[in-house]
């Protein structure tokens, strides 16, 4: 599971009011090399819940270079920063782990795929 995917997922348990973000535990990660596409990164950052990304990236130790907050314009010009975002979003793969609904505590397993 990439962190980009994690940033989009919320719990779909019944009755949950705010099931985002899912808490990640017992995770094992792998890093892959993915082609850097600055246009895609700039397009996607305005759709992210930025603080959730920073939090989980730091938790996994892959948050280096990520700004604490996005600028007003939600566009980034600095290539190193874009590469750091690219790395965190797409190159880190959680190959095993558990995601927990923040309200019900229900767990979802990650094993190559995110499972419901």
């Amino acid at each position, binding site marked *: *599971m*990439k962190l980009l995917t994690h940033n989009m*997922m919320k719990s*779909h348990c019944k009755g949950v009011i705010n099931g985002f973000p899912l808490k990640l535990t017992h995770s094992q990660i792998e890093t892959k090399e*993915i082609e850097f596409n600055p246009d895609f990164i700039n397009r*996607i950052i305005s*759709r992210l819940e930025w603080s959730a990304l920073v939090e989980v990236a730091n938790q996994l130790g892959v948050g280096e270079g990520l700004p604490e907050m996005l600028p007003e314009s939600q566009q980034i010009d600095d290539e190193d920063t874009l590469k750091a975002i690219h790395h965190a979003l797409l190159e880190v793969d959680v190959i095993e782990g558990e995601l927990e609904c923040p309200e019900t505590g229900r767990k979802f397993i990650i094993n190559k*795929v995110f499972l*419901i």
Partner: protein
Amino acid sequence: MKKRQLESLLQDVEPFSRPKMDLEQYPTDPHLAASVLFTIQSSFGDIEDRNVLDLGAGCGILSIGCVLMGAGSVTSVEIDNDAISDLVDNISGYDMDDISIVQADVTHLPFRSGRLFDTVIMNPPFGTKNNEGIDIEFIEAAL
């Protein structure tokens, strides 16, 4: 990439190993997949650099096709364990790391609200197997 090249590359996508009638699992054929994806990209520019969601991904031919056509990221949603296993095998056959697989029911998608994806693609079940209206549910989920 030319349409014929895409079609030829998609010939290697393996079909369902254990197709289930009640889920209307049939593979989208490479010619159709290539035509659809090529049109989406050439007429609308909606694949390259885009964040794509494939609902009911099955064996993954549309997802794989999108990666081949330069999608920024592809997320594939599929409910069935066996299909997911085929999907994982197909993706590794193409040596791709750009596809994220989510096992979920399309009518209960686990995504937060908002415009997260640029493009949603699907070849959904039609509702011929005691699941009338499922095609509409897929479309509603996409919207």
